[in-house]
């Protein structure tokens, strides 16, 4: 274990990331906004839908990172070599 590790800061990051992930959620995308018969109206709906999917995936990634940091910080705080190994294992799985 690195003696300079600051698990409190890691845990704080996890908390902030959870807030970031929550902020990314929500907001309704415009689906086919008006002007029937125009291709762009359909395209806006499809664009918004695709971006929502991409954004949802990004949000899930941030949320996973936050959870992993949270677990890691908890383990690091115990300053346990075994716990450190668990943290390494955890990160190696998502890395």
């Amino acid at each position: 274990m690195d003696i300079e590790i600051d698990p409190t800061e890691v845990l704080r990051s996890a908390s902030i990331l959870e807030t970031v992930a929550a902020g990314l959620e929500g907001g309704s995308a415009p689906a086919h906004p008006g002007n029937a018969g125009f291709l762009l109206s359909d395209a806006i709906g499809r664009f918004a839908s695709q971006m929502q999917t991409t954004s949802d995936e990004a949000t899930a990634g941030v949320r996973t990172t936050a959870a992993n940091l949270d677990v890691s910080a908890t383990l690091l705080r115990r300053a346990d070599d075994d716990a450190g190994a668990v943290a390494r294992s955890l990160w190696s799985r998502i890395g």
Partner: protein
Amino acid sequence: MITVSRLVAFEPGPWQSAAEWSRERGKAARRTETDLDQEAAKVAQAWPSPVGQLAAAILRQQADAQGELAVAYDDAGVVIDDATIAMGDLRQQMVSLQATVAGTPDMSGPDDSGVVTGTRAFDNLVEFLQNRAAAGQFTITAREILMQATDRDRAASIALLGIVGIDVPPTNDGPIDLSDDGIQLQADLNAQDRYGDCTTLSTLIGIAHSDPDFIRRHMVWDPETGTYQVTLYRDGEPVTVSVDPATLPTDGSQQAATNKPSWLSVYEQAIQQEFGDVANGQFEEVPIARITGEDVPRTGPPSAADIERAMDQDPRGVITADTANAPAQPDNVDPAKRVVPGHTYCVRGLDADGNVILQNPWGPGGGWHDGKYYPGEVHLTPEEYERWFSNGAVLNPPY
């Protein structure tokens, strides 16, 4: 194809809201990018081991992903904003045109497809001709506005979906619109120029309204060479001709008023390249054979019954009729019924009164010959048609 009623009903509000939504999402993604970058720096500092650095790297990747989202949202906002402004301008042009037409005596339209009709009776030759010529110009202007709106709408859609990697079919048409509407509109706007290939053009106009997919199958864009690969027929066998749309002659067939090249320009050029004599055999079976490989006999002008039967087919038949051996019209003929001597027209069908509708490949504005004006579209009674047309051909599906 965007119609007049749809264009006039265009509301900028919904698109403006969509653009605003996109910009706001872009700003939010940038804020998230900054937050993630800051957290990555903190994690890297608080957890200096390789595992901590890996955590920081993952956070930076997530920040980068947010940055890419922000760029996509920003780009989309620009595309939608530009399209909204352009469509608003085109809408205003159409509204102004409607007002101008409404304020012009003996004029009606434009109808949903942009056609303006001159209604001046033939009681004064000069005023009659001015009325018909003005109607033709109004039609060209209206169609040009619709075409610009259609092109702009399509280009904006492709650009917007391209941002998220969605291809909008067809994307391989090259620089010329080969949608059904595009093919038919270009056929309606076709203006014959240097070449005396009226039968070729009339046949192509008929095919556009019968089976536009025939044009797409026989005129394929090759993005690698930047050329259209046009399939023609020599002695019944297919031959492929490469046509570079960037090097089309400026005085060949083109779209009326705007002088833009059309798919007919490409086809005409392909025939000229392959055979070297695009004007040859116009009053023989040559043009249809070169275009379709079919041996279609040239007969007398197809009768009204023939026309009705051909138009009832699905897809409809293609009919041309010419005045090559027809007697001259009397000097006092109604100018609205003037037909060009030694010329081929596309027979478009019968109107509600049973008159034969003939489209002049010179274009919707018609033209002048030997000091006389000839309209772009003529409606003749079946008797007049059979008197003033000498020959014709019917190309029946499938072809």
